[in-house]
């Protein structure tokens, strides 16, 4: 049986309860809206860019613990990264929570989501922020996990 404690690690619940990156970037160069119809969550991700470099990422909206923590930690790890970095990190992250990836292939802070893989119904919660980020970068306004 999958272990609940692996899903709700302290770092996850901490970021879920006290997100550090809630809000809207200023300036806001890209904006995307994400929707997870499974739980009714809607989030808005904003990005400020300096050329190809991500200066800041923020998110807004209500979500479950997994989705909020994932949004917050995504915002945290992407600061100062390039757009290509962001895509690569998402790839690794997606492999971690839904594929064969290991904790080594993602920035350390994201390793706390390793437990998600055991909860297939929660994969979409963990990836919603990322899908929304990519949509924002690519100029699609909306992302949905369904």
């Amino acid at each position, binding site marked *: *049986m*999958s272990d*609940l404690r692996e*899903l*709700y690690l302290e770092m996850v*619940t901490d970021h*879920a*309860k006290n997100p550090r990156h809630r809000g809207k970037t200023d300036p806001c160069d890209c904006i995307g809206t994400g929707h997870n119809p*499974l*739980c*009714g*969550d*809607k989030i808005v991700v904003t990005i400020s860019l300096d050329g190809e470099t991500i200066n800041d990422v923020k998110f807004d909206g*209500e*979500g*479950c*613990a*997994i*989705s*909020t923590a994932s949004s917050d930690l995504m915002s945290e790890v992407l600061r100062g990264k390039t757009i290509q970095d962001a895509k690569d990190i998402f790839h690794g992250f997606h492999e971690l929570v839904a594929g064969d990836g290991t904790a080594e292939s993602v920035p350390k802070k994201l390793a706390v989501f390793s437990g998600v893989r055991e*909860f297939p*119904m*929660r994969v979409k*919660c963990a990836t919603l922020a990322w899908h929304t980020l990519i949509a924002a970068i690519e100029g699609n306004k909306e992302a949905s996990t369904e």
Partner: protein
Amino acid sequence: MLNTEIIADSFPALHQTIGDNRLVYLDSAATTQKPQCVIDAIVSYYENDNANIHRGVHTLSQRATQAHENARVSISRLLHASRPEEMVFVRGATEAINLVAQAFARPRFGEGDVILITEMEHHSNIVPWQLICEQTGASLEVVPVCDDGSIDMDAYKSLLIPNVVLVSMAHVSNAIGTINPVKEMCKLAKEVGATTVVDGAQAVGHLQVDIQDIGCDFYAISGHKMFGPTGIGCLYGKYELLQEMEPWQGGGDMILSVSFEETTWNDVPFKFEAGTPNIAGAIGFGAAVSWIQEIGYDEIFKHEQELLAYGREVLLAIDGVELIGASKQNAGVIAFTLKGVHPHDVGTILDHAGVAIRTGNHCAEPLMKRFGLAATCRASLCIYNTRKDLDYLGVGIQEAMRILG
């Protein structure tokens, strides 16, 4: 009190563990579990009588036809229809409502006509009417819901202007469990000459429904929400209305004769049952009806009311729990939120404890919005549930509060 342990014994799916915990199934509003007799009826059809129905002269076909039509008779009696021909077999309540919308409303409604629904409807009783409005130019009006989850009857009365051509309402809300005064609502609707549709998906598994007494024109039900199989349901329609209506789908069995020049429709209800129906489904549905009748609605309702009261008590004893729309006339549905904990997380944590509830918008987004929520938790009760089940629910919720609250 009813010996529900014995009742639960007839439901094979209830006897399993999720991880290390016994399954506690509190998601019957999504779909009920199936008693052994229903499963057996399906198996027996496939193992003994499997054949296509109508127009077959061989023995299997006769048996299958007989069993299929017997099911129609059982269901029509359960609901007190005036004749079996008033029950049209469909996939479920959703198809039933779409059938009324497309075969009754679409050819009749137009600009200026008003369709009235309530704020607590399931999407299946919203979207078909939105489509009709788009297709015919009619407009949709919505009766608001009070804070306690009951329909605002004053608002209902004032919305019932003569332009209202159809009123469609849930008998029981799937999201919060309100039992609506459908008899009174139909009577009022009739006064302005409106056709009445009652969405009974959440009613017939839990309380006695007498269609004649309610006085509605149409009534929609789903087999799978009343101990029957998936993929089968019924639309009840008054005989005269069904006769006047356009056909629904075209195909085999719904015609009397076909030529490229002229096609004549079959009689009601066959006119609406094109193609091979869900024969096994109908037969299993019939078995479910017999099962319900064996227990009796009095027992069912009493038991679920008792559990409802107990369940509310258990939940309200937990800090941070808020009940949503817990009206006085309520079926066994408990909608709630947990302070600071998203329903989706509650669902996962409860599942881990073996407790199956539903979380989300329950296909009732407008009602969620009415209560200012994106999602809720819903524990829905059934005749096979026990107080112990609700104790487990309470323990699981406390665990969720501990982890995330």
